[in-house]
């Protein structure tokens, strides 16, 4: 059978490589064909890819949602063509997907903010810095929504800055920002995997000691698991990227065989130093 795995992510964003690995693993384990594509957040090209899959009479489609509402139409088209379409990574309840597998970015964002508040790391009047690779990309926006709902009532301010997807540029921009605002920044939330994974290099360059500024954020990369283990990052969010892809494809396969999935699968866990080793092992393939 042939399945299409369509992602709005960037092929170079580390976390997506783990999602992709899950899809490839599934293809190998089941012997089915999985055609994969990345659309760098481009809604139009994403829609085009889903429609191409429908046109190619795919046995099943698993797709992320580049923007809430953007796949309402194409999901209907897939339903009409009787092709199972499973949503993963970014939910969109408005579209008629057969099921959803993944986390919830708004909840993650709320979780990070709440963690900082509960542990007494930030208080009223404090300023939190939130670097993100691409401002305006869905994940960051939804996370910001969750964070806002916690911080605003408490009078905690924050700023989102652009870090880009280029590793060297990420470090440079974060170093510049931290150099300029070192005294002001009371905590950092890394809204993406690349920025959170760069914290160690930024701290080392600016001369900030691990733990001096509390950090929470995404944790789906080896860089971050190491940072948690070494005390640079206080807590990081695990999204089960490989499992998400694997399960989503399994659901699609199941639906293709005539068993409609009647449930969503929610993934994700916030880990600290004590449990970080587990994820470090997963990511380094141990």
């Amino acid at each position, binding site marked *: 059978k042939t399945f299409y795995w369509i992602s709005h992510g960037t092929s170079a964003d580390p976390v997506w490589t783990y999602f992709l690995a899950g899809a490839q693993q599934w293809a190998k384990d089941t012997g089915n064909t999985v055609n*994969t*594509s990345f659309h760098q957040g481009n809604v139009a090209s994403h*829609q085009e890819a889903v*429609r191409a899959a429908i046109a190619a009479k795919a046995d099943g489609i698993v797709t992320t949602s580049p923007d809430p*509402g*953007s796949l309402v139409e194409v999901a209907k088209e897939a339903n009409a063509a009787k092709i199972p379409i499973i949503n993963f990574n970014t939910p969109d309840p408005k579209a008629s997907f057969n099921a959803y597998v993944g986390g919830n970015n708004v909840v993650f964002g709320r979780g990070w903010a709440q963690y900082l508040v509960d542990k007494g790391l930030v208080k009223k009047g404090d300023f939190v810095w939130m670097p993100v690779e691409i401002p305006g*990309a869905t994940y960051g926006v939804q996370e910001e929504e969750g964070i806002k709902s916690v911080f605003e009532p408490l009078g905690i301010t924050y700023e989102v800055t652009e870090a880009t997807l280029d590793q060297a540029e990420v470090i440079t921009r974060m170093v510049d920002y931290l150099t300029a605002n070192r005294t002001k920044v009371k905590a950092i939330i890394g809204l993406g995997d690349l920025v959170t994974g760069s914290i160690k290099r930024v701290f080392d360059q600016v001369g900030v000691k691990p733990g001096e500024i509390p950090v929470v954020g995404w944790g789906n990369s080896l860089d971050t698991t190491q940072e948690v283990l070494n005390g640079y990052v206080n807590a990081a969010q695990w999204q089960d990227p490989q499992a998400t892809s694997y399960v989503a494809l399994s659901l699609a396969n199941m639906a293709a065989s005539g068993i409609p999935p009647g449930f969503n699968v929610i993934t994700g866990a916030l880990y600290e130093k004590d449990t970080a080793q587990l994820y470090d092992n997963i990511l380094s393939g141990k």
Partner: protein
Amino acid sequence: MENRSFIQRFIAKPEFGPLVLLIVEIAIFWSINPDFLSPLNISNTLSFTVELGLIALAMTLLMTAGEFDLSVGSVFGFAPVLMWTLFNSGITSLEVAFLIALAVAALIGLANGLFVTRIKISSFLVTLGMLLVVRGVALFISDGFPQRTWSAGQHWLAHVLVGDFYVGPFRIYMSLFWFIGFALLLGYVLTQTKAGNWIQATGGNPGAARARGVNVNRTKVLLFMLSATMASFAGVISSIRTSAANPNSGAGYELEVIAMVVIGGTALMGGRGTIIGTVLGVFILRVMRNGIVLIGVPGLAYNIFIGAIILGMMTLHSVLERRHQAGT
């Protein structure tokens, strides 16, 4: 030189190369996956094609006049954000917001044009700077949040711009008609009108054109305005069709659009341009992107194919050109 048969004359046309390329390309994809020519896939390809195509049409005239515009991608992203921000915040009606988006884009084009013609900075730097400014403004006014476009579905403007209907098994978007309309209009302007003559002269030999009383600067400024306005128009169409106005959309379109125009046979340095060629160039690149997904090229190898095909096609193009030159 004059007694050549129709076929010979046809082969000598600059549009012949791109046409052969397009046919070869379609044949290859079709032979690998017959679904490639299914009505559904054709409808699909057409819908997105026209949005980049609209920009490419305007860019053809601008490049014929010897300049190019790197800021079209960010105007494409900015215009719908502006329009929906104005509308969603209840400041104006959708129609007025639409007109404001077009007008602001025209002003951006005006600024590009004035920098290039008055201050005499190369269009590369001017439009690169403008790209950053416009993209930044889009992010800033939207705070990075995409604008909701739900409410557009039933609005008459949405119907006129992107309404769809079925012709037999084909789902046709209104935007296709806009593309055809503009292709005819700009093709007419470039080849049949006085303005077209001025555009070609401006790109071919600005000094000579100026000496004959052609207002070279005004011609360039107007074309910069056209290109920005068209990018804005395309952006609005795209935002309604995809139900999303994201400040980041359109990133990287500038290079793709310029590639379309050049593959179609318009000279990179100005003086010679062809709308028919651009239409072919638009299809060559879009069909390629669609076909590659359809025949199941692995996601990560996607770029390799796009790049290799651009190189391969340009080589073929260049071989065809040379053969034709040797024959006259």
